[in-house]
C-alpha cells in the first residue's frame, strides 16, 4: 500500500504537467513583468536597461494615479453593492414562492460575454435612441446627458452594468450560504421572540460571516483588476475619465508601445491585488478574535 502510493515516478507524472503549465504561463510571467518594468522597450526592438526609472515615473504620473483612483472607486461601489445583494438574498431565502426561478433570472446576465454586455449597454446609454434617455425624457428631463461621452458620468455609467452582470452571482452565493443555516437556530430565535430584522442581523449575518468575507475579497480584487467592459465601452476615455489600472496597462502596451512602462503598471497591479487580499483577510481575522 505505502509503496504503491509513494511511487515517485507516478507522482511526478501526475503533478508535473499541471505544475509546468502554471509555472511557465503564470509564475514566470509575473517575475518577467517585474523585470521588464526595469526596461525601456517598444515591444519589438531591443530592450534597454533603465533601472527604476519606470517605477519612478509611475509615482509622478497623474494619469496612472487617476486610474488607480478609478479602480478603487469601482472596488468601493462593488463592495457597497454587496449590501444590496445580501438584502435580496435574505428576502429570497425566507421561503419566498418562486425563489428558485427568481435567482436563476438574476443569474442570466452573468452568463453573457462581456462583449455582449458592453454592446448592449452602449445601446441602452445611446444619447438619442437608448432606453435610459428615452425614459428620462418621458419623465421631463429636457437634455439628458450622453452618459459614456460625458467625463462626469462615464465611470458610473460603467459601474452599473458591472453590478448588473455580477448581481446574480453574489445573490447565488449568499442564498446558498443562508440556506445552509440550520432551521433549529432560526426557530429557537423565533420562539425567544426575535423579530425578522433581529434574526437577519444578529443571527444570520454572523453565521455566514466567512462567506461574506470571501465575497468582499472577490468583489474588491475583481474590481481592482477589472478591464473588459471599460476597454470595450470607452477604452478608458473620454480623456482618461474611465481609465482603470488594467486598461491603462493595456493602452500603454498595445496602443502606446511602451511595453517597459506598461510592465511596471502590471507589476504594481499585481502588488495591489495581493496586498488587498492580504489586508481584507487580516482585518477579517482580527474581527473574529473579538467576541461579538
Amino acid at each position, binding site marked *: 500500500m505505502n509503496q504503491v502510493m509513494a511511487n515517485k515516478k507516478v507522482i511526478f507524472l501526475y503533478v508535473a504537467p499541471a505544475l509546468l*503549465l502554471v509555472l511557465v504561463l503564470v509564475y514566470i510571467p509575473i517575475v518577467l513583468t517585474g523585470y521588464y518594468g526595469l526596461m525601456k522597450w517598444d515591444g519589438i526592438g531591443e530592450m534597454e536597461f533603465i533601472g527604476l526609472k519606470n517605477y519612478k515615473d509611475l509615482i509622478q504620473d497623474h494619469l496612472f494615479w487617476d486610474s488607480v483612483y478609478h479602480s478603487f472607486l469601482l472596488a468601493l461601489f462593488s463592495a457597497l453593492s454587496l449590501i444590496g445583494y445580501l438584502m435580496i438574498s435574505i428576502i429570497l431565502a425566507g421561503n419566498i414562492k418562486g425563489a428558485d426561478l427568481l*435567482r436563476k433570472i438574476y443569474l442570466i446576465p452573468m452568463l453573457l460575454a462581456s462583449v455582449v454586455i458592453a454592446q448592449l449597454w452602449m445601446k441602452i446609454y445611446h444619447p438619442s435612441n437608448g432606453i435610459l434617455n428615452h425614459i428620462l425624457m418621458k419623465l421631463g428631463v429636457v437634455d439628458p446627458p450622453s452618459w459614456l461621452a460625458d467625463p462626469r458620468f462615464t465611470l458610473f455609467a460603467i459601474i452599473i452594468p458591472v453590478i448588473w452582470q455580477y448581481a446574480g452571482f453574489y445573490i447565488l452565493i449568499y442564498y446558498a450560504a443562508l440556506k445552509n443555516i440550520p432551521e433549529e437556530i432560526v426557530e429557537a430565535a423565533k420562539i425567544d421572540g426575535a423579530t425578522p430584522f433581529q434574526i437577519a442581523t444578529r443571527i444570520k449575518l454572523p453565521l455566514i460571516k466567512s462567506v461574506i468575507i470571501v465575497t468582499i475579497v472577490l468583489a474588491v480584487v475583481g474590481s481592482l483588476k477589472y478591464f473588459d467592459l471599460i476597454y470595450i465601452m470607452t477604452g478608458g476615455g473620454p480623456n482618461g475619465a474611465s481609465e482603470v489600472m488594467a486598461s491603462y496597462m493595456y493602452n500603454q502596451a498595445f496602443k502606446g508601445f511602451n511595453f517597459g512602462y506598461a510592465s511596471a503598471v502590471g507589476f504594481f497591479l499585481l502588488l495591489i491585488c495581493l496586498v488587498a487580499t492580504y489586508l481584507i483577510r487580516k482585518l477579517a481575522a482580527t474581527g473574529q478574535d473579538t467576541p461579538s
Partner: protein
Amino acid sequence: MDTAKPVQTSHREKSLLQIKRLANPVAYGILYSFLIVVAAFQIYPIVWLFLFSLKNNQEIFNTSPFSLPTQPKWENYVKVWIEGNIGQYFFNSVLYTVSAVVLTVLLASMVTFAITRMRWKASQPVLGLFMIGLMIPVHSTLIPLFDTFTKTNLIDSPLSIILSYTAFNLPITIMILLGFYEALPREVEEAAVMDGATIHHIFFRLTLPMTSPVIATTAIINMIYNWNEFVFVNTFISSDTYKTLTVGIQNFIGQYTTDWGAIGATLMISILPILIAFFLLSNRIVEGITAGSVKG
C-alpha cells in the same frame, strides 16, 4: 392583582397578532414586488436587445424603443450570418472551450489525486503554489506571455489560447476538486491496491468515475469562463479564422456602427447557445457557480 397581569399580556398578544396579520401580507407584497423589480432590471435589457434585433433603422430611430417591431425583420439574422464569420467564430469558441476544459479537468484531477491520495513531502508547498495562482491578475502576465508566444511562434495560434485557459483555470479547478476528494471514502481505492491494481488503473477506472459529479461542476464553471474570455484572444489572436465569438463579434460589429438591427442580431446569435444551455442545465450551472465562487 395576580390574575390581572396574564390577562393584560394576552390582550397585548392578541393585538400584536392582529397587527402581524395585517402587516404580513403587506410586507410580503412589498418585498415580493421588490424582488420582481430586480428580476425585471436583470432581464429586460436582454428582452430589449431581442426587440431591436428584429427592427430596421427606420423603426429604431422613429418609434419608441419599447415598441414591438411592426414586422419582425428576421432578415437581420440572415444578413449577419451570411456576411460575418459567425459560424467560424462559433466553431473556434467551441473548440477552444472544449479542449481547454478537458485538459484542465484531467490535469487538475491528476494533481488533486496525487495531493490527496499519494504520499510525498512537497505536496503541501505544491498545493500552495496552485492556490496563490488564484490571486494573480491576468494583466500582470500579459506582456511576458505575448512576448514568449511571439518568440516561440505560438502567437496567433489556437494552442496559445488553449494553454493559457488551462493554466489560469487550474487553480480554481483544483480547489473545487480538493473538497470533493477529501470527502470521498478511500476504502475502494485501498481494496484495489490490496488486489494489486496499478495506480493508473485506480485513478482512471475507479477515482475518475467516482468523481463525476464534481467533474461536471468544474467543467461547467470552466466552460463559462472560457466561453466568455476576451483579453487573451484579443491580445494573442490576429487572424480572423482563429478568433472566438467574443472577439470576432466585437470586430464584426465595428463595421455596423449605425445598423442597430444587425448589431442586435449578431449579439442574439452569440448568446442563444448560452441561453439554451442555461434552460436545459440551470440546476447544474447554479451548482457549478456556487462551487466556483472563490474566483471572480
